[in-house]
């Protein structure tokens, strides 16, 4: 049983992938940062109960996902007042992290993948978890992880091809193809 976890090393190693995963779930910078902090705090509080140090990574992602879902349930039981459409437009702010077009493209494509495959793909790409860790995180059999990864990747490939195809056909003038 691990009683003295090296929390500083764990945080240093995993705060970035956890944040990315949180961002993919929430699409909100503040919420992603809060989820990441909350997840590590839960680890600090429950570190005495950690029995297998090798499973901390998947434990953290499981916890973050659970906290995110808990937040969603809480929001749905206390629904926020809808904004009027004309005001809503003014309040939509593009998160800084999504200004990086590459990440935006990938996240948008991931968001369009069937829900049953999406989580497995997010854990594979964003958290860099192995198939065993994904199975442990989602509490599903290894075989299911593999088939979902395979089908999910196929969907993702098609979606990315659709997104990127126009760029290949009509490159941006800024890429150097100025009309002559």
């Amino acid at each position, binding site marked *: 049983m691990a009683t003295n976890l090296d*929390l*500083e090393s764990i*945080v*240093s190693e995993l*705060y*970035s992938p956890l*944040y*990315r995963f949180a*961002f*993919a779930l929430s699409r909100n*910078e503040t919420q992603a*940062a809060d989820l*990441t*902090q909350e997840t*590590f*705090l839960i680890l*600090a*509080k429950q570190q005495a109960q950690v029995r297998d140090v090798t499973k901390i990574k998947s434990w953290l992602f499981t916890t973050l996902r659970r906290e995110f879902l808990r937040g969603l349930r809480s929001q749905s039981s206390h629904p926020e007042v809808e904004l009027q459409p004309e005001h809503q437009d003014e309040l939509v702010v593009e998160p800084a*992290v999504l200004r*990086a077009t*590459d*990440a935006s*493209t*990938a*996240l948008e494509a991931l968001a369009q993948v069937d829900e049953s495959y999406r989580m497995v793909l997010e854990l*594979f*790409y*964003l958290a*860099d978890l*192995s*198939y065993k860790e994904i199975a442990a995180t989602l509490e599903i059999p290894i075989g299911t*992880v*593999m*088939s979902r*990864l*395979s089908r999910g*990747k196929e969907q*993702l*490939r098609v979606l*990315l091809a659709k997104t990127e195809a126009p760029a290949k056909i009509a490159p941006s003038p800024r890429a150097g193809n100025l009309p002559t």
Partner: protein
Amino acid sequence: MNLDDAKEILSAYRSDDRDREDPIFREALEQMASDGDLKKWFEEQHAMDRAIRQKLASIEAPADLRARVMAQIRGHEARGRRFTLPPWLAIAACLVLGGFAVFYSRITGPNRFQEFRSEALAMVSKQGGPLLDLETPNLSETQTFLREHQAPCYEALPAALKSMETAGCRAFVWKEHPASLTCFRLPGGQFLHLVVIDQAAVGGANIAVGMKSMGEWHVMFQQKDGMLLMWATRAPMEELKRMFLTASCEWPDLKKPS
């Protein structure tokens, strides 16, 4: 293994350094060596994985997130180190200490030393633990803090104490004399408090050395380099004896506890 099975397994393959040794991939990887179509599919798949990971890697966590996480964890740990006392026990402790104060003042009359001892004990008995200016597990940080705040600090501690984790420290003034409190965490989880004050602050009192039990507290005084050191703990006497027995090698003036 047919082509679809091999593809399904290889979909979970991340990179050579992480997954090559995993037996679940072995057969599929071997099959790839003799199947051109599978190899081509795998290379395309792998290129896509790399591209997606690269894209997603551009999602950057806020620059201060790591520091925020660590600050929150340290805050939690510091709160955890502060001991809590059930209200009924705090009341009982106050009554016992109050009783002792009255008892001692009746027998010996009020003097500065007894006053200091009573007030120092009241301070460390505070419900929720004594108020600390600095919460840190690091003894040298407490010593630096006390030096910076011109509070008396006895640094020539035995190795057994130097290696002990602290809860923190406090610089305070008692009757216009600077004083300090340092709280050590004993191996058993309880605290050992060290209160230090200029010896002149308590006058020329004849201070008895050796351990004394005062209610639930075990207290010991030492006089070092013109300073009065008061040690106080609620830990079992046996634990305290063991610790000071170890320390007595470096503090020859320390009497073997009886």
